[in-house]
């Protein structure tokens, strides 16, 4: 069991207050992230309403199945993070390590699939400014610019998340966490869940624009 007294930074009265403060700090950061992605979603909404035909034409080049697999992979990774928090609350650090490893594996699977999708886009000449050969409605490039910027920033967040989870495994292996002190696991989980929520919106907006016959 970790020495709880040493876990409390001197500006806090006790662990509960410290935990509350760090959770709140993470939520403040996530609020800035909501607005960071929110600006891009606003751009998406404006251009989709102005050039709907271009968005339909662009989205025909998405692989709905690969996107669906990735959505399921991310939803499962959120579940493994939540189960990791549950494990550390019970003091089961072995299970915590396993759930964090599963989370990293699922996150890496997502990125590998995303990489395949990007390379297909390159092969088909669908990358604006680099290799763009699509003859379509006016402004069809805008769809792909938004696709690469928004999924690219999302993927960047995934890479950061994998780094954070790796650090959490190392700290777990060092015996830093106990049922009384596991706040870094909790706030890392908040970040991971947020990145999952961004994808929950990206998937229907980019892959499912007009797939019905």
């Amino acid at each position, binding site marked *: 069991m970790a020495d709880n007294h040493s876990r409390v930074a001197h500006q806090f009265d*006790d662990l509960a207050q410290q935990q509350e403060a760090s959770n709140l700090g993470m939520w*403040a950061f996530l609020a800035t992230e909501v607005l960071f992605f929110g600006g891009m*979603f606003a751009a998406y909404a404006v251009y989709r309403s102005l050039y709907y035909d271009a968005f339909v034409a662009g989205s025909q080049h998405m692989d709905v199945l690969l996107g669906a697999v990735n959505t399921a992979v991310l939803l499962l990774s959120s579940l493994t993070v939540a189960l990791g928090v549950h494990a550390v609350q019970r003091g089961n650090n072995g299970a915590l390590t396993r759930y964090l490893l599963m989370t990293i594996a699922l996150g890496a699977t997502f990125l590998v699939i995303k990489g395949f999708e990007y390379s297909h886009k390159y092969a088909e000449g669908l990358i604006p400014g680099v290799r763009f050969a699509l003859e379509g409605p006016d402004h069809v490039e805008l769809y792909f610019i938004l696709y690469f910027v928004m999924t690219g920033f999302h993927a960047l967040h995934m890479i950061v998340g994998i780094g954070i989870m790796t650090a959490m495994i190392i700290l777990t292996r060092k015996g830093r966490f106990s049922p009384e002190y596991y706040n870094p696991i909790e706030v890392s989980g908040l970040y991971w869940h947020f990145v999952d929520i961004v994808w929950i919106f990206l998937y229907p907006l980019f892959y499912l624009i007009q797939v019905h016959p």
Partner: protein
Amino acid sequence: MSGHHVSRRVYFAVGFALLVLFLLTVGVAYIDLGPFNVVVAMAIATFKAILVVLYFMHVRYSSRVTWVFVSASFFWLVILLVLTLSDYATRGV
């Protein structure tokens, strides 16, 4: 003292609900609802996000001040989207 403990059953139930809602999103996309396709898709996505925030992110069991922070981020997002889109929607071009 370490916050509310959510049971494994709740986590699995929420995870299952998220997967069902995801399949629903895909299924509904293949039905032609005209302009309502995107409305339904965003409604389901918002509901999924609320499930994640309330249960996986433990906001349902969090303090009032956490609720204020979460609501504030949502509120400012709504300002960003509504004011931007109301501008474009009323330009008449």
